[in-house]
């Protein structure tokens, strides 16, 4: 297929470091955000989500931060491991109307973890 977007940004870290992956979203009406991890040859896998009435949510080794003022989302991975190497996508959606449930994906970031 034809490429319609930009090639993905990359982040390289050492094993054990903390990683921060950033995402700028486009729709100020979006009220639900998801981070996905996509390993080579696989479909995206759900990592963590956050609703717009929160500004922080923590999971196991991951934290998502939401700044609605500047429409910015970040994923923090603590003690990054080689198994965390993948492409990370943020996605947004908003309730209501015919678009309910449709996700708009961000550009994605390639995370490479060096042993």
């Amino acid at each position, binding site marked *: 297929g034809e490429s319609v*977007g930009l090639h993905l940004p990359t982040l390289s870290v050492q094993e054990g470091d903390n990683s921060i992956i950033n995402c700028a979203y486009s729709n100020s009406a979006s009220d*639900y955000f998801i981070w996905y991890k996509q390993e080579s*040859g696989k*479909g*995206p896998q759900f990592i963590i989500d956050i609703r717009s009435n929160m500004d922080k949510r923590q999971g196991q080794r991951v934290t998502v931060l939401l700044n609605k003022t500047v429409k910015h989302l970040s994923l923090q991975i603590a003690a990054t491991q080689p198994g965390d190497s993948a492409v990370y996508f943020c996605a947004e959606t908003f309730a209501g109307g015919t678009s309910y449930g449709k996700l708009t994906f961000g550009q*994605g970031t*390639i995370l490479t973890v060096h042993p």
Partner: protein
Amino acid sequence: EADIYQTPRYLVIGTGKKITLECSQTMGHDKMYWYQQDPGMELHLIHYSYGVNSTEKGDLSSESTVSRIRTEHFPLTLESARPSHTSQYLCASSEPRLAKETQYFGPGTRLLVL
């Protein structure tokens, strides 16, 4: 682990052939989606369905068509494949839970049209 399946995983075919990519989910989700993703690139929604007999075009124009005759099945068809259709096709499904709408993805089908 989501129960959503795609077949075939890999497909190499010649130009002009008709192909159908299969997607099935056993979660009883009403909503299903097809995305197209080129290597190292973003996901683009090409089709979605809110239930049986419901199909809609996505944000990215596609020459493919879809059908939704059964809740669990959402096949994608290309009547005449061309090299420009070479890409990865990802299927997903979702169901609202507590005002959330998380989509679960299948493993994808990598299509190469010669």
